[in-house]
């Protein structure tokens, strides 16, 4: 297997240099070179074997999990490492070959490695308590499987909060067939979040105070500014609307740059990860969000990106200037810098509390301007799922009355207690929904805004464009919530549920360049399974931010009494309704989900879907992988608090 191209390797080299040159010599060297300059001594960090040097073969690899001190973000914290580094080595597999990944646990506690997005026998999936008992201290687990796919993926610990401590790494599967695009350079760009605090302390802090890490709240200064712009009455009405709900408009991220240092391939912004290119070359960048909790908005100023893969699956190439990447998602892009100049790869955390960056450059040591952080976004009444029609009927809601609804053919609510449970009211409500969900068509039927929401909407949000215009651009209302409010573990419900696949995402609503949306993703090949749906399952994403409780359908994992049953071979529609006012990246192990984004017959495949606030998203699944599969929110602390289920395919 290839050498791990990792910070730790570099560190060892630097230590070697220190020994050879002596402290004085190193000091002199350090004063001449930037901190990351050691990269010139190693094959570039994040480099993937280039296309012309790939030779399909079985992959045999040892991966060691350790706790150790290492150089990270300018300090030497104690962390958990994979082969002595954070992130772990780039694991490269070949489609059609066999993989044997031997994971040895050198920790004093149980550990595990899950292969995120990889199709394999469930016993190899690496989820303790679901697919195996976990790896005891000193033990080795050999994950052995036939490689049935290609693309960009990653791997990480599935035990406790170990992922936050550093147990994650990139995984690249090279295709057996030639790819539909050419490129000269191939880099992994793994984004992650690091805290020098104990993650358990971080969680305890959130339990004690949900906005512990939010230092971008609205203050008296904001109030005065809003009152000047929109009038005191409107400013007060807006505060009253949020205060009455006991929710905060500035609640974008639970954990922020206040404690996080954001990393690119394990390097903080000052470390400046650099990918080299010669002008005119085509460079493939495999973006992986290996964060515990952080969404990023990613752009390369001055360089359009052609998106070719999402979650490891080829899509019809889309050119864009920026994209949002949810936790655990991957996007592959190709860029072609023509100038003999440096370009900044900019990844802002969605809440604008921090960023990480790297550089694409013709030579090491170059860098381009780092754009300042943009203004932090705010939640709106669209995110809250509020009904802004104030009782008046409007276009998008036709046919949504419960009474005269035809039951879906073959719809079977039995055996779904684990997932659907008490939510039968809304469960039947979706039966007559238009599942084609064509976002462009829907845009025309966005409901008018009236009443109190207009007051709230007229607050300018600190930008030139008022929120009102953003509400008009929100996706169409496609359903209404049933009477079940999911108990005290859930604060609010999405009274009106929207198709938001055509929206660019939080923080990108008002940018003046192109932004990738889920509606842009179109599978490069036709979907394999064209059978009609046998069964629908509706699942609500629920939470109580104030108490920091997270769940599905209001039930935390320890409260559920069964698994979610999929019948082997059946064709399912999984509907996710996000009743909370924040995004949740929902991940199904073992099987891809086809996102119903309007490209019928060419639906994109996702292993992780970021469901927007008050969104109703629809996914098709062919249950063709037997076994037990984890299904959860990939925000690590949400999963830890119980936003987790087990899907059993029998």
């Amino acid at each position: 297997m290839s050498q791990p191209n990792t910070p730790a390797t570099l560190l060892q080299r630097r230590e070697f240099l220190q020994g050879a040159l002596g402290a004085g010599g190193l000091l002199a060297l350090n004063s001449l070179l930037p901190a990351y300059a050691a990269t010139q001594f190693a094959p570039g960090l994040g480099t993937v074997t280039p296309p012309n040097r790939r030779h399909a073969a079985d992959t045999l690899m040892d991966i060691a999990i350790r706790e150790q001190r290492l150089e990270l973000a300018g300090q030497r914290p104690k962390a958990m490492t994979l082969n002595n580094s954070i992130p772990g080595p780039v694991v490269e597999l070949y489609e059609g070959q066999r993989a044997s990944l031997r994971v040895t646990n050198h920790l004093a506690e149980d550990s595990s490695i899950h292969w995120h997005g990889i199709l394999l026998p469930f016993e190899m999936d690496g989820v303790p308590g679901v697919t195996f008992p976990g790896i005891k201290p000193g033990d080795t687990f050999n994950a052995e499987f036939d490689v049935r796919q290609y693309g960009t993926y990653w791997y990480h610990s599935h035990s406790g909060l170990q992922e936050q401590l550093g147990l994650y790494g990139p995984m690249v599967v090279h295709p057996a067939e030639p790819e539909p695009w050419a490129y000269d350079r191939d880099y992994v760009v793994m984004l992650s979040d690091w805290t020098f605090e104990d993650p358990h302390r971080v969680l305890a802090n959130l339990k004690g105070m949900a906005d512990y890490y939010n230092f971008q709240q609205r203050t008296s200064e904001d109030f005065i500014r809003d009152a000047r712009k929109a009038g005191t009455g409107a400013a007060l009405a807006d505060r009253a609307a949020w205060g009455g709900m006991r929710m905060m408009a500035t609640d974008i991220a639970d954990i922020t740059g206040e404690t996080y240092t954001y990393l690119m391939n394990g390097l903080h912004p000052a470390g400046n990860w650099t990918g080299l290119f010669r002008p005119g070359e085509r460079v493939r960048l495999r973006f992986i969000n290996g964060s515990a909790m952080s969404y990023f908005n990613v752009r390369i100023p001055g360089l359009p990106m052609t998106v070719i893969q999402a979650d490891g699956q080829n899509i019809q190439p889309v050119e864009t200037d920026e994209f949002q990447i949810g936790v655990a998602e991957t996007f592959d892009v190709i860029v072609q810098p023509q100038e003999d100049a440096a370009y900044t790869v900019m990844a802002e955390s969605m809440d604008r509390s921090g960023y990480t960056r790297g550089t694409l450059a013709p030579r090491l040591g170059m860098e381009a301007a780092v754009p300042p952080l943009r203004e932090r976004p705010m939640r709106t009444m669209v995110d809250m799922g509020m009904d802004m029609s104030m009782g008046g009927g409007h276009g998008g809601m036709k046919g949504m009355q419960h009474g005269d609804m035809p039951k879906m053919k073959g719809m079977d609510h039995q055996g779904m207690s684990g997932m659907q449970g008490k939510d039968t009211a809304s469960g039947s409500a979706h039966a007559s929904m238009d599942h084609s969900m064509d976002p462009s068509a829907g845009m025309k039927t966005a409901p008018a805004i009236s009443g109190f929401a207009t007051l709230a909407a007229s607050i300018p949000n600190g930008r030139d464009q008022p929120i009102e215009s953003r509400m008009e651009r929100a996706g169409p209302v496609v359903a209404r919530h049933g009477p079940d409010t999911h108990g005290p573990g859930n604060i609010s419900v999405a009274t009106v549920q929207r198709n938001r696949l055509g929206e660019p995402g939080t923080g990108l609503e008002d940018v003046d360049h192109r932004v990738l949306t889920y509606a842009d993703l179109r599978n490069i090949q036709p979907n394999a399974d064209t059978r009609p749906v046998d069964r629908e399952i509706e699942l609500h994403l629920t939470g109580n931010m104030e108490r920091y409780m997270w769940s599905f359908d209001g039930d935390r994992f320890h409260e559920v009494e069964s698994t979610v049953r999929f019948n082997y071979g059946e064709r399912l529609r999984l509907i996710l309704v996000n009743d909370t006012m924040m995004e949740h990246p929902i991940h199904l192990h073992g099987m891809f989900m086809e996102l119903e984004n309007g490209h019928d017959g060419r639906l994109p495949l996702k292993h992780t879907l970021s469901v927007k606030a008050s969104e109703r998203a629809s996914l098709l699944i062919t249950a063709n992988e037997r076994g037990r599969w984890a299904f959860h929110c990939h925000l690590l602390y949400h999963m830890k608090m119980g936003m987790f289920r087990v899907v059993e395919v029998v």
Partner: protein
Amino acid sequence: MRYLITLLTCLAAISAIPAYGSDDGVNPRTGAPASWPEPVKRSRFSQFLIDRLEAGFADAEDTNVWDAQGWYGGDVHKGWLKTEGEGAQGEPLESAELQLGYGRMIGRFWDLQVGVRHDFRPDPDRTFLAFGVQGLAPYFFEVDAASFISDDGDVSLRIEAEYELLITQRVILQPRFELNAAVQSVPEAGVGSGVNTTETGLRLRFEISRKFAPYLGFEWTQRYGETADFAREERAPTSVNALVVGVRAWF
């Protein structure tokens, strides 16, 4: 001997219960062997918050005050502790109380609390049963309301409300209001029937960190009716305006 037999019988019975983690069962949540660990383990948390630890400066006398509470548990069930007290500087404590109890989530924002309160001061000491609700009211008012029944059957009531106004991200203005009332008069405790006292305060704190914030403030304490009469008999003031300096901290 009889105790020994009972003990042995109990031990035998306990040992017959299959230990958690036997290979027999299947975990219904995972479909996996019950002997495997849970994929997501339940966690318990704790917090100890010193809301006020302050010195008050007034015309009549300078005082020291503490007001703290802590909890341990999960989302639904919690054990809690509350303590507060006050005394003139350099004098024995005028009041000192400790509450211990159990709290249960009864709504999205509210916990129902039952417990025991013991007042070590004033002398003679008294013990109460406490019933209350604590939580977050609309518009972000933090509310703690409790009624107390003393071992003599005297009933009293206390309502506290706090609000936080962000001047900047770290400079926070906190209005606070507390009302004490009693059904029966208890002269030896200086408590009259009806509304006893109100405390109205305004504190400006600087959050050096979320867990450590010194503050400056003002507090107006007013005694009413019979309670005010008792105070006059003790030559104590019925209305006090104090500047306060203190610290808010949690662990």
